[in-house]
């Protein structure tokens, strides 16, 4: 590829700038996780919910004989998209424009928010109804609209629970997964003006309360904001996959529709959807198909919004694309299967990750999007929020090798250090010992001390500083009574070098 056609040859791939949006928390993962683990209600809610969804997913995946073929195809389609991303986006833009839509481009979250706010104002609205969207969570759109005098109403039930509870989302698919039914009932009783005071905590009654609360908003809304699950380059077709019908309400009833999507959501052709519409519902809600999937192309006279705006956002994706390994994280279709199978997520919950993208994919996607700026960057701690058990790879419908990306991002985290950490010191000490046979032998002599520390349990549970930073959260097995060298010398006399 020649670079002579670049309009500005100095332009480089960029990370998501700090300051706007929700790709970083305020405290490192271990500190957040420690607090979360102390919340027994949270652990019970998460354990129950992830257990239910794991069983449902396993049942509907098992009944698909060609599941592995679909995964390989999904993975290859996404790899192809990454190799042709700029061209596909230009094709998408042309197709959407030809069908009456207007395409906007945003370098980052702040620019995306500003575009949406301007469009809402131009449409004469002071409020919008919103379809659940990870992209608008990423940019902090609701806060930006509010600052601009526009009220944003979340219409997905879980997003509504989060918004009414002045809370943060903790799961990609079910942002209120950390709340149980009685907590939701309390939020509704407190925050919904017209709610039936006899509301019970039965899920059906809670869902009906949300229906009543939002019905008039839907029927009167002038402007809707959505994300997109897929955008088809060759036809300009957008798609939103949902359950409740709130998506259909937003995509159909208002006069103006504004869709904000990350650039990686594009797929080349309509028939590519035949792969993803099989992979996504079974992986996310554990259903053969989600209740509603809407597809639309530009503007259809007399049917649905008569003004359609599509905002294509970079916000760090070009930076991820420039990473030969990391770009695989852009294949993510936001199903959340990796969250539900992750032993770390199940216990720590989504808030501990700080970013709107939690769980295994979030632990790589968040630092890839933002870049790791140094040892004080809280996102530097995310790649360590894993035991590398590999369950996330097995569950991923597009075969993202998340364990490999976690290791890559750990390396990036280490390289970002400006001053040596305890681990760096330990690794350097190990290098000194292990690059000389004489020094290594001398170091082995010291290991006998460990057998004394371990006592009868065979585990060392507390060491003095600096090693206490290791034993604070882990035990150390005592060294064996005989080193490998001693064993070799004893069993093969005369062959020691």
């Amino acid at each position, binding site marked *: *590829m020649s*670079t002579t056609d*670049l*309009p*500005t040859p100095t*332009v*480089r*791939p960029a990370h998501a700038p700090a300051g706007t949006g929700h790709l970083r928390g305020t405290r490192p993962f271990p500190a957040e996780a420690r607090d979360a683990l102390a919340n027994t209600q949270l652990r019970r809610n998460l354990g129950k919910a992830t257990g239910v969804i794991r069983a*449902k997913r396993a049942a509907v995946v098992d009944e698909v004989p060609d599941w592995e073929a679909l995964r*390989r*195809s999904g993975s290859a389609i996404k790899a192809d998209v*990454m*190799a042709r*991303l*700029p061209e596909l986006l*230009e094709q998408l833009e042309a197709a959407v424009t030809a069908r009456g839509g207007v395409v906007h*481009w945003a370098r980052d979250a702040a620019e995306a928010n500003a575009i949406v706010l301007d469009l809402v104002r131009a449409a004469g609205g002071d409020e919008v109804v919103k379809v659940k969207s990870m992209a608008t969570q990423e940019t902090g759109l609701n806060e930006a609209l509010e600052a601009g005098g526009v009220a944003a109403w979340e219409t*997905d039930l879980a997003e509504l*629970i989060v918004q009414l509870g002045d809370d943060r989302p903790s799961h990609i698919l*079910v942002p209120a*997964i950390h709340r*149980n*039914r009685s907590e939701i009932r309390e939020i509704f009783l407190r925050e919904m003006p017209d709610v039936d005071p006899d509301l019970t905590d039965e899920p*059906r009654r809670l*869902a*009906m309360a*949300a229906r009543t609360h939002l019905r008039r908003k839907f*029927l009167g809304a002038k402007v809707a904001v959505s994300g997109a699950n897929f955008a*088809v380059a060759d036809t300009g*077709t957008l798609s939103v996959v949902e*359950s*409740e*019908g709130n998506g*259909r309400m937003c995509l*159909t*009833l208002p006069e103006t529709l504004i869709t904000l999507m990350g650039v990686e959501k594009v797929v080349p052709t*309509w*028939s590519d959807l035949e*792969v993803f519409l099989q992979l996504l519902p079974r992986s996310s809600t554990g259903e*053969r*198909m*989600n*209740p*509603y*999937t*809407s*597809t*639309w192309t530009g503007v*259809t006279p*007399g*049917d*649905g919004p008569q003004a359609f705006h599509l905002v294509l956002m*970079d916000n760090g994706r*070009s*930076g*991820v*694309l420039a990473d*030969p390994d*990391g*770009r695989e994280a852009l294949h993510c279709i936001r199903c959340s299967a990796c969250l539900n199978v992750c032993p770390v997520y199940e216990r720590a919950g989504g808030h501990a990750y700080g970013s709107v993208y939690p769980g295994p994919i979030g632990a790589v996607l968040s630092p890839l999007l933002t870049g790791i700026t140094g040892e004080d960057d809280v996102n530097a701690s995310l790649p360590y929020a894993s035991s590398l058990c590999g369950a996330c790879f097995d569950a991923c419908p597009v075969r993202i090798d998340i364990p490999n990306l976690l290791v890559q991002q750990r390396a990036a985290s280490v390289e970002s250090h400006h001053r040596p950490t305890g681990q760096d010191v330990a690794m350097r000490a190990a290098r000194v010992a292990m690059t000389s046979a004489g020094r290594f032998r001398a170091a082995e002599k010291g290991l006998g001390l460990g057998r004394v520390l371990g006592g009868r349990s065979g585990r060392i549970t507390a060491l003095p500083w600096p090693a206490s930073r290791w034993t604070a959260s882990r035990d150390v097995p005592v060294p064996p009574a005989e080193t490998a060298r001693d064993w070799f010398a004893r069993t093969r006399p005369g062959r020691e070098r």
Partner: protein
Amino acid sequence: MSAPAGARGSAREEVLARLRAGRDAGAPRTAPGPVPRDYARRGAHDPGSPGALDLLVERVEDYRATVTRVARPGDVAGVVARLLGDAGSVAVPPGADRAWLTGIGGRGAVVHVDGDPRPLTTADLDRVDAVVTGAAVAVAETGTLVLDAAAGDQGRRLLTLVPDHHVCVVRAEDVVGTVPEALARLDPLHPLTFVSGPSATSDIELDRVEGVHGPRRLDVVLVG
């Protein structure tokens, strides 16, 4: 990055330039080969076959929607009348087969035809008890009905969204086995709605509850 938007030049050109540079810098050492397509395009049952119809019934009912099978188009009206029960008003798209509604005439139910004499508004539809439409295609394996807004008997998208009860008449020859077979029959330039059961949510403890914002009741009439 903090310069005002106007001073930053064209976002379009900059985003595309960044993506070209990123695409080239991160290119894998070996170019990706052709996309493998060795998944099943067809299922175990031919379109419209008895096996496909039986599977569709099982999968639709699994979503707690109902399916009533009739042998001939002439039998639809009686089933529709029974499903509509004491509904006082019914909306239909302009191209709907009027014979579907002949069974409700005796009870004085009002039939609103979208576009005749004028397009129905959201407020009109909010006062309607039920809507009766056809479907473009149905997917047996997933229990999915696809509504094509450009087809006269399926109607504009709000028609099947605002009323609380949707009766959908599906012809046997429109029942395919798999999602790929369905997409091949559809025109992506038309607004499409894939419906799998009534509106539902899993947002409270991941427990599926039917009936949120879309129609809370979905009844399918399968013809042939």
